[in-house]
């Protein structure tokens, strides 16, 4: 049975210019001990969809789904009190900006202790012991001293480690990492990714990695969901996706990576930009930029279909040779 099961998730925002659909028909299923990566460019709805699962969106957001279940419990109908019990304990999350994710007014020890007190009801001494254990687990040297440190005394990498320590404090079953390394330096990024994957292995939790960095995805994820303009366009095993992407968007995106075109004079590009709120095309959202576009693509939105081991939203998927069928 999968841990988190989502069918047809949509999120809409009311704005000055009318309704904006940030997430449009996303299907996800995350098993225990799974590493799923959600990739997409900015504005593709990758963060918003997970925030919707966590119930962390502002009230202006309108979340709808056919099914949104965590361990068989329906997250849509849960009262906010019950939801809070799950969020932070069974599902937790880390964010892109480690420096601003920690409250600058309180020490690291206090902030970790808060989580432990809220969810596990540990007493003072047990909290301290557990906090030291956690900091040690995420590779912070001299954890006893670090407990008294304020966030501004920590570097970006250290802050992210503290965030991870807080996130795994209650042994969550699912950890959502939203661009956890984007704000960090390359060598620190490698450390944090290794830490996350090791923790995932040791603790047997599921990990959802939201990122735009294809390299990070290729080196960590087992399965990959590719999102474009709020829609899920492709889902595949990581190896398969990077070897034979089937959606024209995934295909073009991978081609645009600098490392894939070392021999070429210029980088292959995707012409145009992601459609905004006001100019979404009628048919397939990628059709205005697609190399393989045909008339039916412009007429109607392709449904999300399973083709062998791939979930695709495309009428004319690209096969192995890079030709549209």
């Amino acid at each position: 049975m999968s841990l988190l099961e989502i069918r047809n998730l949509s999120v809409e925002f009311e704005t000055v210019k009318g309704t904006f659909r940030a997430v449009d028909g996303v299907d996800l299923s995350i098993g225990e001990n799974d590493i799923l990566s959600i990739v997409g460019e900015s504005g593709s709805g990758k963060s918003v969809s997970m925030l919707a699962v966590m119930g962390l969106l502002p009230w202006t957001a309108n979340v709808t789904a056919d099914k949104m279940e965590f361990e068989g419990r329906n997250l849509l109908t849960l009262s906010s009190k019950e939801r809070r019990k799950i969020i932070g304990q069974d599902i937790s999350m880390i964010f892109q900006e480690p420096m601003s994710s920690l409250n600058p007014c309180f020490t690291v020890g206090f902030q970790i202790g808060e989580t432990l007190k809220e969810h596990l009801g540990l007493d003072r001494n047990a909290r301290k012991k557990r906090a030291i254990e956690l900091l040690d687990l995420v590779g912070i040297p001299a954890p006893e001293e670090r407990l008294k440190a304020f966030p501004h005394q920590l570097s970006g990498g250290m802050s992210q480690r503290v965030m991870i320590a807080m996130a795994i404090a209650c042994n969550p079953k699912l950890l959502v990492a939203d661009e956890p390394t984007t704000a960090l330096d390359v060598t620190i990024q490698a450390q944090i990714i290794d830490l996350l994957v090791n923790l995932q292995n040791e603790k047997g939790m599921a990990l959802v990695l939201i990122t735009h960095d294809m390299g990070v995805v290729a080196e960590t994820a087992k399965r990959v969901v590719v999102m474009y303009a709020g829609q899920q366009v492709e889902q595949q095993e990581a190896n398969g996706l990077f070897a034979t992407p089937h959606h024209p968007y995934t295909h073009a995106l991978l081609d645009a990576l600098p490392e894939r075109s070392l021999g070429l004079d210029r980088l292959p590009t995707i012409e145009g930009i992601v459609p905004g709120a006001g100019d979404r095309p009628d048919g397939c959202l990628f059709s205005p930029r697609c190399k393989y576009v045909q008339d039916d693509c412009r007429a109607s939105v392709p449904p999300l279909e399973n083709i062998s081991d791939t979930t695709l939203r495309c009428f004319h998927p690209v096969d192995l040779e890079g030709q549209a069928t």
Partner: protein
Amino acid sequence: MTAAIEGHELKRYYQVKGEGFFAKPTILKAVDGASFSLESGKTLAIVGESGCGKSTLARLATMIEKPTEGNIFISGADPHAHGGAEIPRLRQDVQIIFQNPYGSLNPRKKVGVILEEPVIINQNVSAADRRRLAETMLDKVGLRPEHYDRYPHMFSGGQRQRIAIARALMLKPKVLIADEPVSALDISIQAQVLNILMDLQEEMNLALVFISHDLSVVRRIADQIMVMYLGKVVEQGEASTIFANPAHPYTQALLGATPAVDPKLRRERVKLTGELPSPLNPPPGCPFHTRCRFVQDICSSTAPPLETKFERLVACHFAEAAVES
């Protein structure tokens, strides 16, 4: 042939207030001895993590700041000689684009005004000619003449970066400093902007100083590389030589930490333990010795000189061991 831009033993120190009320000010050695020489049409990539001094080097090259020691030469002329009398003339030859496309354009000015500002300040050109020049430039970076009258907030990140490029090239400079020009952009947009940079470099015979932490981009675009760590140059030479076989342990670690999609391009991950030391209080001897896997006693006492080994400049006592590994 004189180099378009040349740096000779550039140093830039800042006085920083110490912690505490009575603490003595400490000296921050942001750039500590960097030399380079770049011809027209070539690209020099300056690579390093935060605090390595790459952005300070950009400020020195654009003559916003004066080097504490050493000299900079623009087409052979020293701007800081004769009390800086030549700066206004030489400034036109060196222009810059920044990382954050949202911060680098004045939000209260129309695109046309932004583009024409450098011309208004430096040259005596009629309004009609200025406008024609601005529109030509917009065309060159793939925007349309009607964008002349729009405000920056109406453009996406990639389009803004194009405007920034257009502005930098309005004065027909000989040198373009690009400070992390694509790190804030999505992959597909990144490819577009890189292509534009390469096209314009070819067309205008620009010397391009490309500052970046992303080695997969650097590998794509650079002719020469300068790797910096805490203000010091640790390795410098032809890009192909260094990418084929990095000789400094830090360069190796950087390459190893850069995630790659293609398994063939993945290097064995040389794990760096520990954090980046603070540039305010760099380790004695070789600045990298606290995180280096080849460290020996001499490293913590004597700073290795930058010398020619294996057809490049490298500052390491044990470059031989590093190359062989």
